[in-house]
């Protein structure tokens, strides 16, 4: 059957036959790099047009419909526009850090791609601490926002950065705790093992109510971590104009923009991996025929289907909810989400020890 792993293997074999091992690794690294960057660009384009179409659909309008069939090339045109725009640096800004910040955001987003399993046996780096790596590296993300806010020499940006710092640092806790729930169940941090443990059922179904709570907490926390509405206080445009990226224009703004969308993709991919079985098809107990049909759907389609479903969920939040206030936001985390996810983790641990899951 056609699959990504076969392609990857055949490339690897062909390279091994023609080059010595060092060159093989270097060429494979280059291929992987190019693949990640092109996936990046593609994701940016797809997610922007998706966001615009989803919002248009919710807001009873048509959305972009001029460039290309059904406006599908609109985000391409936007990218071109942003590319040729002048990148301004405000006077009084710390030029070095101001220009560095968007690249940090990008690099972090790229690093996060490494442990994600896009399809069966198709993963860049299956390191044994996969999910810990993701939550560790994603904590660098906040640095780029703080850097941008500080270096802009703008009070709105500084306030945005402060808000964002407080927000991301607090919501990392409950995101981490809800990830831990799955880790406790699986007994491993490795992405491939977590997916493998869901062969006979996804954790959201296998883990009873506590896993559902963990899933909901996870979605709320990552929405906050990626600065998406209703938690978009860092860029709240009606209060802080655009928060930390007020002063950014042209390509540097586009990098922030892109990094935001790629981060949304990554957290949704992690969510799909942890709770919805990654590339695992949907199986129902002993319905052999049904399960067989499900197996015929390629694993990459399962993965992207689940991921885009979660992305749609996060977009749905954005276009229906008003924004929270900063104190309400932190109240929600420290008074509700964190205690709930802590108690939930205890229950999950008890469940894992007693084997109370399917």
């Amino acid at each position: 059957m056609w699959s990504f792993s076969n392609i990857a293997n055949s490339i690897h074999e062909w390279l091994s036959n023609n080059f010595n091992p060092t060159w093989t690794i270097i060429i494979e690294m280059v291929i992987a790099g190019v693949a990640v960057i092109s996936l990046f660009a593609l994701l940016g384009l797809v997610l922007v047009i998706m966001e615009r179409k989803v919002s248009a659909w919710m807001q009873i309008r048509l959305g972009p419909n001029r460039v290309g069939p059904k406006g599908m090339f609109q985000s391409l045109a936007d990218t071109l526009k942003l590319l040729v725009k002048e990148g301004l640096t405000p006077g009084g800004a710390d030029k070095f850090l101001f220009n560095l910040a968007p690249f940090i955001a990008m690099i972090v987003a790229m690093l996060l791609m490494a442990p994600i399993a896009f399809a069966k046996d198709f993963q860049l780096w299956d390191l044994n601490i996969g999910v810990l790596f993701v939550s560790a590296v994603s904590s660098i993300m906040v640095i780029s926002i703080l850097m941008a806010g500080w270096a802009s020499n703008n009070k709105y940006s500084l306030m945005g950065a402060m808000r964002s710092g407080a927000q991301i640092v607090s919501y990392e806790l409950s995101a981490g705790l809800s990830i831990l729930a799955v880790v406790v169940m699986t007994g491993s941090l490795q992405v491939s093992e977590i997916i493998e443990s869901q062969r006979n059922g996804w954790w959201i179904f296998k883990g009873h109510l506590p896993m559902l709570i963990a899933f909901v907490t996870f979605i709320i926390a990552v929405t906050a971590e990626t600065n998406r509405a209703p938690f978009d206080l860092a860029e709240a445009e009606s209060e802080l104009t655009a928060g930390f990226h007020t002063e950014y224009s042209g390509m540097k703004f586009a990098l922030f923009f892109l990094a935001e969308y790629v981060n949304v993709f990554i957290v949704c991919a992690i969510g799909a991996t942890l709770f919805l079985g990654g590339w695992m098809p949907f199986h129902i107990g002993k319905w052999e025929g049904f399960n067989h049909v499900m197996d015929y759907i390629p694993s990459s389609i399962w993965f992207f289907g689940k991921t885009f479903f979660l992305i749609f969920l996060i977009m749905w939040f954005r276009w229906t909810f008003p924004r929270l206030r900063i104190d309400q936001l932190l109240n929600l985390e420290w008074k509700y989400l964190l205690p709930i996810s802590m108690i939930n983790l205890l229950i999950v641990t008890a469940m894992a020890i007693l084997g109370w899951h399917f």
Partner: protein
Amino acid sequence: MTGSDIIFYLLATLCVVFALLSVTTRHIFRAAIYLLFTLIGIAGIYFWLQYEFIAAVQIVVYVGGIVVLIIFSIFLTQQTGEQLPKQKLDRKIFAALVVFAGFALTMVQIYQHTFIETDEIAITPTVENIGKKMLAVDSGGYALPFEVISILLLAALIGCIVIALREKKNIEPQIQDDTEEHKGIV
């Protein structure tokens, strides 16, 4: 030189260069960012050693925690675009001497120390093994240090709360005074 060596020297240079930049720059925020790169470089060396777990913990604790804390304190006390005052020459010389002395002490220790090869087999650093080792009470277990550190952290937390509470009492009446004044104006 193999590829592996090249990567090590790259990472080592990164750490050293940014460490030097971090102490020589006169922009305080940049110093924090250079420190961040140094810490990331160290995490990179851990990855190179294939101690992924320690590398990830290094990033979580130092990058996600300590550096963010440092940056916050800079936000609250400093102003954008301001440079720190230039240090006097005698201070610089003194600092260089101290650094050199410390460096020499470390190097001498390393060269004098005879490292014994152990025949114990290193554990595979999976989460399960690390977790079991961390809570093990037999020889080679880390239960005691683990608990001691957790008590230290608890003390730190309580200290924070105490400081925060005391400060609040001092500030509150001041704010009320302000609002009273404003009432008078309006």
